[in-house]
């Protein structure tokens, strides 16, 4: 069931109407289970295709319960190995011999995000933070909620449970805001991401066409444009999906965490990851970065080395985050690239503070020219790094060898400067519109608000009719 399909909208409408008519939390939980089951079933043509995924959930439940009861460190390590091993096996990572794979076609939709939730529960159970037993019904609804199964956000159990109890009746204001959020999501997903997907496909098609005989400058331009278009496409696609599920969650009385916060306003690579896929970053910070840093800090006695420990731990964390994205070798390269970005960024911060002092470093970072250049450099690094998500390893190497090291560097500088100028222009435009709105637009009435929403709906339908294939939600693949 694709998020942009009428079937999904009909499904959501039914779920919202049915759940909205029921007040009992227990009955709502069972109905929600039914909805999750229907959503999962839509990803398989035969029930057997869902068995591996369900077995993974059951394994997670058994381990969480065992850890809650025993709080055994040994069991935690065994459990983590089992869960991560099963994940790697079910996802058919490239380094595993193909003969080891299950001899059947099966669904792995949402497996990555189920893994995050299961690991979170296992560690919390071991640390005694779970409290009482989680019922199997609640566990399944939490790990396989149709709202967050495909690509998050990665909600914590406590947040999820808050939305499962008695919920306040929906008011007209809440419903309008949820509708507006869902429609905004579709604008991003079906309009902005569709347009940039088209631009990306057109330009990257030229770049990767074996028949095309592009000169160096044409390859250079095509690669940079592809990288920029893909980044905007990915952002609009993923953020649009988030708007949709957060809006639907609101109609179901569930408050889902935000996953994006103007990521291209980030002034450095580390800040970017506090604004992009926020819940994933938080998960890695809680369950990888912090424990690793603590572990290293306990073993390194020299206090002068302390600031540099984070450099190493950032590298490892971002490497793991990159590798999580996919089962093929290009994702290792992606992880290395992201890891290098994070650790160089941290190293720069450490050295700059050492040289300039905290106050001067902070003051320097507030200068408008520095802000926009930093934003440009951050965007460009991220955009070039994302090439690993749309190029295979041989294609990536071919493009790199065609452009050469100087070409890649020149491209990085060029995209950085272009992005800096574009961000400055965008901010001026936004500020101008904001001023205009303040002068000319009082709070719109009910009719105007709904006409504005209606116009957006027509825009979505219109642009969808231009592109005969709505862009697939791209993070579904991860």
């Amino acid at each position, binding site marked *: 069931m694709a998020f942009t399909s009428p079937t999904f909208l009909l499904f959501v409408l039914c779920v919202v109407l049915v759940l909205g008519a029921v007040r009992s939390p227990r009955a709502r939980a069972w109905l929600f289970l039914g909805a999750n089951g229907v959503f999962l079933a839509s990803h398989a043509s035969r029930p057997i295709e869902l068995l591996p995924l369900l077995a993974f959930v059951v394994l997670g439940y058994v381990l969480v319960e065992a850890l809650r009861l025993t709080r055994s460190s040994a069991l935690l390590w065994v459990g983590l190995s089992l869960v991560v091993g099963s994940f790697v096996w079910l996802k058919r990572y490239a380094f595993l011999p193909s003969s080891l794979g299950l001899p059947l076609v099966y669904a792995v939709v949402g497996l990555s995000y189920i893994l995050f939730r299961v690991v979170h529960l296992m560690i919390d159970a071991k640390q005694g933070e779970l409290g009482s037993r989680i019922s199997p019904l609640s566990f399944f609804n939490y790990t396989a909620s149709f709202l967050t199964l495909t690509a998050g956000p990665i909600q914590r159990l406590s947040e999820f449970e808050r939305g499962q109890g008695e919920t306040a009746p*929906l008011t007209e204001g809440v419903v309008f805001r949820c*509708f507006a959020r869902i429609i905004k999501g579709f604008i991003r997903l079906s309009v902005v991401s569709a347009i940039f997907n088209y631009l990306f496909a057109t330009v990257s098609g030229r770049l990767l066409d074996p*028949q095309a005989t592009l000169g160096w400058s044409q390859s250079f331009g095509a690669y940079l444009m592809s990288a920029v278009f893909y980044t905007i496409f990915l952002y609009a696609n993923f953020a649009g999906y988030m708007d949709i599920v957060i809006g639907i969650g609101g109609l179901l009385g569930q408050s889902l965490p935000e996953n994006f916060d103007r990521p291209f306003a980030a002034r450095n690579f580390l800040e970017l990851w506090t604004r992009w896929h926020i819940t994933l970053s938080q998960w890695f910070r809680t369950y990888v970065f912090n424990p690793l840093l603590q572990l290293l800090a306990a073993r390194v006695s020299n206090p002068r080395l302390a600031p540099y420990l984070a450099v190493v731990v950032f590298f490892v964390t971002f490497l793991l985050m990159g590798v999580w994205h996919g089962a093929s070798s290009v994702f290792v390269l992606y992880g290395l690239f992201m890891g290098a970005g994070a650790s160089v960024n941290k190293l720069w911060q450490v050295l700059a503070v050492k040289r300039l002092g905290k106050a001067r470093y902070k003051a320097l970072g507030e200068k408008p020219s520095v802000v926009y250049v930093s934003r440009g450099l951050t965007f460009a690094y991220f955009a070039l790094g994302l090439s690993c998500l749309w190029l295979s390893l041989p294609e990536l190497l071919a493009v790199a060898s065609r452009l050469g090291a100087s070409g890649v560097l020149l491209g990085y500088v060029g995209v950085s400067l272009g992005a800096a100028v574009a961000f400055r222009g965008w901010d001026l435009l936004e500020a101008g519109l904001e001023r205009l709105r303040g002068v000319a637009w009082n709070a719109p009435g009910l009719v105007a608000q*709904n006409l504005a929403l209606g116009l957006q709906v027509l825009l979505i339908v219109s642009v969808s009719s231009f592109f005969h294939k709505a862009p697939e939600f791209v993070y579904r693949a991860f």
Partner: protein
Amino acid sequence: MKPLLVQLARLGGAVLALYAALLVITLVAVPLARGDAGPLDASRAASSLYLTEPKYVFMERGRLNTPTDKVLVLGASNSLVGFKQAELQRLLPDREVHNISVGGSNITQLGQIVELVREVQTPAARRHDTYVLGLWYGVFASDQARWYTPDRHAGDTDIDIERYRYGFFRRGESGAVPLLPPRFLSSGAALIHPYLVADQLARDVTQSLRERLSGKPHKLTDQERNARVVSDAERQQYLAFWRNYMGSVDSLSDAPFARLRRTVDAIRADGGKVVLVDMPIPRWHAQGSTLHADYERRMAQLLPELEALDGVAVLRLSGDDDDDFSDEVHPKPRVTPRWAEELAALPLFHDDNQREDHEYRSTLRQADAGFSRRIR
């Protein structure tokens, strides 16, 4: 629940009101007819509100439901370029000539277009159809190679895309299922008018950007095409393109040939006629392609079999001079009058009483058979 239903009603009302307003505005600004009356000519698609050949043919086919003798030219881009509607019409003044060819078609898509035309025609109108099917090895590309590409839902042809685009059809288990009855096609086209206008506007505004990004060479004028000489390097590129495009280097598959036969049978079953045109390609292309050799081998067997059927004629179009083509498959504009003459010269188009003769001969055969049975 009440606030939800109220909001749904408000939003629905807003959408309907806005759409009604847009419909009125676009109908006033861009009237429906817009000079699209007359015979169908898919080469005019780009200047119509439909912009592309598949959409033009899909939306305009309702005009073919008339009880007049019609010649329906159907094929890929070489049929569109090679059989100019106006040239053919001049040579066949007592018939309506329509060119409903769609660039990039394979046999499956040609079959779909025939189905779409039949869908909007009454049985009486179908009896007046003469389909001219332009054949060469390129239209025998396998569906797997042609329609299973990342830019579309797996297996959707360009015609399928038009079927689903505005919801006139829905995707069923075994193919497209019509949602809008064919008799309401023109009403459907009027209802989606704002989308068609928006599509045209968007395409016009972005044309130059799209051309720059795609890096496609500009469309050649007739003069430029007449003067064009294909270099050796280009020949190699074209041959490599077709090897890649067809999904096989050595041989064509049986499926499209079987599909062609089914399409011919369907037209004949309605009382229509078929002209199968074996389209020429430049000699260098024919000699450099293993698939063309396989096509010729298969056609040497298939065409005589089909030609022997009532209502089927075969034309082996002459001329494979390299200089007659502006690229690997499309004839130069100076060549097309000759192609039109060869096609129009077929006896099938000049025997005014052929249908009556055919029916008379059928009656005689039936009478003979009855007589023979009675004798036994």
